[in-house]
């Protein structure tokens, strides 16, 4: 607080009011900007859901129609056609996530609680695999899959999705494990807990929320994956993203059908994200920092 001169003292309200007005208008400006950005991102999604309820004839018009008689006919078509696709997606997603967790847990343990020598190099190697665009790898992947008779096989997707998610899972689970207090592990060691007991009785209870959020992130990424599925599957392992693509025919109107399919495909991931939102943010930001 600086000294107030006689002149300022005469009108004490004026400078203070000016500052406050500036603060409020600054805050209001950011709020408006936030809302604009949020709405801008949400509008396309909203439009997609609205369009899903339109008949095909009313879907792709210019100017866009806001009033229409809603119908479930497109949804009926989607539900009748998506059966095998959603089944393949579910198997690939759940299968790959289970595989990821089974592999990532010991790996994260070996990189955090009892670090092996060269753990830094290992970590960097894991992250470096994400630096390669999958487009560059698709050629060799296709040839390998062909030779191994794994093309259009759900097992191929399980393996590849697991490989895709493993680096992220290892990083995330490792960051959760680093939060286990060192003293607790020493106390367990003094109490006579061997490695197995140390993991099951001491580490797992502390880390389990982290495991859940890691699993959910892997589910989201595996469910949404398109490129590998598109190039390596045809019918026997086609996933939901493939179903969406197949909703685009060579000719004819398709927007309403596509919207309906996309809406249905989004529902599981939205539910998963909603359930896990807090731990998702924590998991993603922690994985980045550590």
């Amino acid at each position: 607080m600086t000294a107030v001169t006689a002149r300022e003292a005469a009108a004490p309200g004026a400078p203070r009011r000016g500052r406050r007005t500036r603060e409020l208008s600054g805050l209001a400006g950011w709020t408006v900007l936030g809302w604009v950005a949020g709405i801008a991102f949400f509008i396309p999604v909203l439009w997609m859901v609205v369009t899903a309820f339109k008949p095909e004839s009313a879907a792709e018009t210019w100017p866009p129609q806001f009033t229409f008689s809603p119908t479930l006919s497109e949804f009926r078509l989607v539900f009748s056609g998506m059966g095998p696709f959603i089944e393949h997606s579910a198997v690939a997603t759940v299968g790959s996530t289970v595989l990821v967790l089974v592999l990532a847990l010991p790996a994260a343990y070996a990189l955090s609680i009892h670090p092996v020598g060269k753990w830094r190099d290992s970590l960097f190697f894991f992250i470096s695999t994400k630096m390669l665009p999958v487009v560059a790898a698709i050629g060799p992947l296709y040839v390998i899959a062909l030779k191994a008779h794994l093309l259009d096989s759900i097992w191929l997707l399980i393996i590849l999705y697991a490989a895709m998610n493993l680096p992220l899972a290892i990083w995330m689970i490792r960051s959760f494990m680093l939060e286990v207090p060192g003293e607790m592990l020493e106390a367990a060691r003094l109490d006579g807990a061997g490695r197995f007991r140390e993991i099951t009785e001491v580490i797992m209870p502390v880390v389990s929320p982290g495991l859940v959020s890691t699993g959910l992130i892997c589910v989201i990424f595996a469910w949404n994956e398109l490129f590998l599925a598109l190039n390596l599957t045809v019918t026997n392992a086609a996933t939901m993203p493939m179903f969406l693509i197949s909703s685009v025919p060579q000719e004819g109107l398709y927007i309403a059908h596509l919207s309906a399919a996309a809406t249905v495909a989004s529902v599981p991931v939205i539910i998963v994200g909603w359930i896990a939102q807090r731990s998702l943010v924590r998991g993603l930001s922690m994985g980045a920092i550590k």
Partner: protein
Amino acid sequence: MAGVRYAAASRVYAKGARPAVDGLDLEIKDGEFMVLVGPSGSGKTTALRMLAGLEPLDGGRIEIGGRDISDVQPKDRDIAMVFQNYALYPSKTVAENMGFALKMRHVPRPERDRRVREAARILDLDEALLDRKPKQLSGGQRQRVAMGRAIVREPKVFLMDEPLSNLDAKLRVQTRSQIAELQRRLGITTVYVTHDQVEAMTMGHRVAVLSGGKLQQCASPRELYDNPVNQFVAGFIGSPAMNLLPAPLTDGGARLAGAVIPLSPAVRAAAARDKLTELVVGIRPEHLHLVAAPASAGSASAGSAPAGSAPSAGTGVDQALHGEVLLVEELGADALLHVRLTGDGDGTGDGAGRGGTVVARTEGRKAPAPGQPVAFRVQPDNVFAFSPETGARLAS
């Protein structure tokens, strides 16, 4: 129950770096409460962890009950440790926390429950708490659960790593005496690490003072206080700390702020033997006796001079330390005076000690005010002399 022995135990973290623990030789008797005390980085916690088996030895060995346990796994050493942050398992109940070690040893359930309940009784832990999780307990209760976890194991040695540092001041004082009393009752050899010298003095049978990884002195609290073996121990033990000031040697003693502090012949001989021209003089705050600030040397002393000290008539050389009060800290029964030594301006000698600050303890109700000139007398017996190079105490 067994004794503990450190034989030239060493721990070095990085090649070529200063050892964290440097050739520690320490013998702890069976049933003794030994406190390891020292500032941060002194190696006390490392020494404790070496005993626990959480740190390997880089030299020497450690024995429990005569058996060399340097290479034995922590769980096989028959010890129990109380950690600074308690290290309780958050997902387990109090009873499960306390019984965990027994469960790892496959002790049958009824025996486990019995021992847990017994430990809870010894520690005054309400049985209702046994089914709660640690996060539902207060800090003091958690500390007792941590101790209960150690007691239940009935080990040969208790290890405690600053267990009181997370408690508030009042609880700390209370728990301090409870731990000391508990140890006396159970009679288990205890090694206790703290940085707080008050805890060390009040709890330990013997106290080992460490600095820079080396043992400075290991003795009873009284012995450490009255007979510190070097400048570090003298300045570390005792609160407020001993006043330590450099003072050049002169005839009959050392010159401090214009006055001559008398030194015993043994000290003077030791200084001459080491060819020292300057000493570090140490005087405890309670040994600086306030005298009425005299206009000239030799006036009778007043104030808080104890019955045994005879006010010495000046013989032309002023033996009182003169200064000006900077600050008065009220403690209730006592007061601590922070005094800047000014010397009496007679121009003799150099400025050694002039401008230095001392802390003196005086009676609370008769304390002078800040800014007042004061003078102190000190008995020759109460003056410690240390070598300025090595810090070792001269003569004894």
